[in-house]
C-alpha cells in the first residue's frame, strides 16, 4: 500500500520534523572532544546513576508489571476497562503531575510517606525516589505488553498441562512465561528506555542532588547553559540508546527469535 501521491510531501515534511532536531544535535556536537566530555566526572556520575536507577526500575517493572498484566486479564468487563485506564495513566500523564502525585503519596507528609517517616524511612529526594519515579512512568509499557500478549494467545496448552497434573505455578513457569518471552523483552526494553529518559517526575519528586538524584537528563538540563558542549555530548549518548532500543523493541516479527 503506497496510498495517493499527495501523501508524499506530507510524509517528507513529517520526516523532516523528526530528523531535523536529531541532525541539529549532531551538527552542534564538538566531535573532537566528545570522549573527554562524556568521561568528565559530572557526566560519568550522572550516566552511572542513570544506568543504576534504570536497571533497578526495569527489575521492579518486571517483578510488579508482569503480575499486573495477568491481573488485568483476570478481571472482565467494566472493571477491566477502569483498571486499565488507571494503570496506563502514567503513559499520558504529564511527568510533572506524576512527580507531584508521587510527592503526595511517598513524600515526607504524603499518604504513605508520613507513616514511613515516623518509622525512620525517608523516600523523597533519595536515589530510591528516582527509582520510584522511573518505575511509575515505565510500568505501563510492561502491563500493556503482557496484557496484549495474553489476549493474543489461547489457553489451550495451559488447560492440557493442568490435566497432566501440573500446578498453576509450574504451568506459569514452564509454559506461559516462556511463551511470553518476546512480549516480556519488548516491555522490559521499552520500560528501560522510558526510565533512562525520565525527567519531570524525577525533578519534582527526587530533586537534583549531584550523585544522588541527578540522572543524565537532569544533568543535561542543568548543563545546557553553563556547558552546552557537555550537554550535547550526554544527549548524543541518550540518542544512541534511544535509537538502539527502538530498533530492538519494534523489530519486524520475522526477525524475532525463531522458536
Amino acid at each position: 500500500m503506497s496510498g495517493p501521491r499527495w501523501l508524499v510531501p506530507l510524509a517528507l515534511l513529517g520526516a523532516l520534523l523528526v530528523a531535523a532536531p536529531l541532525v541539529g544535535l549532531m551538527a552542534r556536537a564538538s566531535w573532537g572532544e566528545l570522549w573527554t566530555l562524556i568521561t568528565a566526572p559530572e557526566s560519568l556520575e550522572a550516566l552511572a546513576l542513570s544506568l543504576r536507577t534504570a536497571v533497578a526500575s526495569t527489575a521492579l517493572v518486571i517483578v510488579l508489571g508482569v503480575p499486573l498484566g495477568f491481573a488485568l486479564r483476570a478481571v472482565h468487563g467494566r472493571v477491566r476497562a477502569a483498571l486499565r485506564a488507571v494503570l496506563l495513566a502514567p503513559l499520558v500523564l504529564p511527568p510533572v503531575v506524576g512527580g507531584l502525585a508521587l510527592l503526595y503519596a511517598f513524600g515526607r507528609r504524603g499518604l504513605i510517606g508520613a507513616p514511613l517517616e515516623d518509622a525512620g524511612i525517608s523516600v523523597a529526594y533519595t536515589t530510591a525516589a528516582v527509582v520510584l519515579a522511573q518505575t511509575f512512568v515505565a510500568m505501563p509499557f510492561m502491563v500493556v505488553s503482557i496484557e496484549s500478549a495474553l489476549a493474543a494467545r489461547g489457553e489451550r496448552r495451559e488447560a492440557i498441562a493442568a490435566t497432566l497434573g501440573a500446578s498453576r505455578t509450574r504451568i506459569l513457569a514452564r509454559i506461559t512465561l516462556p511463551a511470553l518471552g518476546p512480549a516480556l523483552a519488548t516491555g522490559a526494553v521499552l520500560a528501560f528506555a522510558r526510565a533512562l529518559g525520565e525527567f519531570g517526575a524525577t525533578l519534582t519528586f527526587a530533586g537534583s542532588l549531584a550523585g544522588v538524584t541527578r540522572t543524565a537528563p537532569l544533568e543535561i538540563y542543568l548543563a545546557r547553559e553553563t556547558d552546552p558542549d557537555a550537554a550535547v555530548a550526554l544527549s548524543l549518548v541518550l540518542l544512541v540508546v534511544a535509537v538502539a532500543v527502538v530498533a530492538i523493541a519494534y523489530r519486524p516479527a520475522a526477525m524475532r527469535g525463531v522458536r
Partner: protein
Amino acid sequence: MRLEARVAVLARGVDATVSVGAGRTLAVLGPNGAGKSTVLEALADVTRPDRASVTLDGRELAGPRRRTAVPARRRGIVLLSQDDALFPMSVLDNVAFGPRSARRGDALAIAREQLARVGCEDLAERRPGELSGGQARRVAIARALAAEPRVLLLDEPFAGLDVEAASSIRALLRTLLADVTTVLTTHDALDAHTLADDVAVMESGRVVEHGTAADVLARPRTRFAARMAGRVLIEGTMRGGRLALDGGSSVPVEGGPGAGSRAAIAVHPAAIPVALDSPARAGAHAWVIDEVLALEPRGDHVRAHGAVVSADVDPALAATLAVGTRLWCGVPRGMPAYAL
C-alpha cells in the same frame, strides 16, 4: 477406575451421559459437530460445564454433593486433544512434564520408557516443530501415559493423520490401551470396532445409544446409530418368522421377539443388491419395492436411501436413478432379528 458422568455445556447444546468400566475402552461415536470433543473437555475440566456430575471409582469429582468441582490437575483425567498441544520444549521434556512423581531424574526415566513404548526414543532431543504429524501424535500419547492417568481421554486420535500413520497408531493404541480406562471419540465405526469395548452413539449433543460395542454396532436401535455403525436399519413387526416391513412387504428372518413385537435387522448397505425391474428369481434375497428418497455420493459408490431400505449402488446404475425412482432391493434372507 469406573467413570460415570453426566455433563452439560449449554452454549454448545451438549447434555450427555457416559460411563466406562475399569480398564475398558468406551468409544463415543458421532459425526462432526455432535459434541464429542466438548464431552471430553468437560470430563477433564478443560471446558467448564454448566452442569456436571462426574464420579470416578465412587469418588465424586463434580456434582450436587460438592460445593466446588475437583480441578483438572487433581482429577487424574488426562486429555489428549486433536491438536496434540505439545509444549515448546524438547520431546523428552514434554513427556517428562506429566509424571506425578516429583523428582526430575525419575520423571526423565519414565519419559524415556514411555517414548520407547511408542517407538519414539530417538526423537527425545527434537523440538515439537521438527516432528511429523504421526510422530507428534505418538509423543502426545507417550506424554499422556507418562502422567499415569486414572482415565485417558483421546479426542479423535487419528484425525489429521495420513492413512499409514493412522493405521500404525491404531495398532499401537490397541496394545497400549489394554489395561487403561479410556474414552475416545471417533466418527469412524472401524475405530469403535477395533479399539472399543463399549460404544456410545452421540447425536446433536445427546447420547442416543450406549452399550457394548458388539451390541451397539451389530444391533443398532435407531437409524442414526445404524448409519454411524455403517449399516442400514430395516424396521418392522414380527409375523411368525418373518419381519413385516412398514412398506407392506416382508422378509424371512432368524430369531427375534414374539409375533406382533417391533423388531429390526441391521444390514450392510453393500450387501443389498438393487434392480430396476422385478428380478426373475428370488434367490437368497427377499425383494422389497422401495422409492428413492435421496442419493448420497460416497467416493466410489452411491448410497441410495429409500423409505425402508438403503443400498449401495455403483455409479453407472446410480446415474439412471433420481429421487422418486422405484427400485427393487434385495434384503438377505435369514438375518438375525432383534427387538427394538
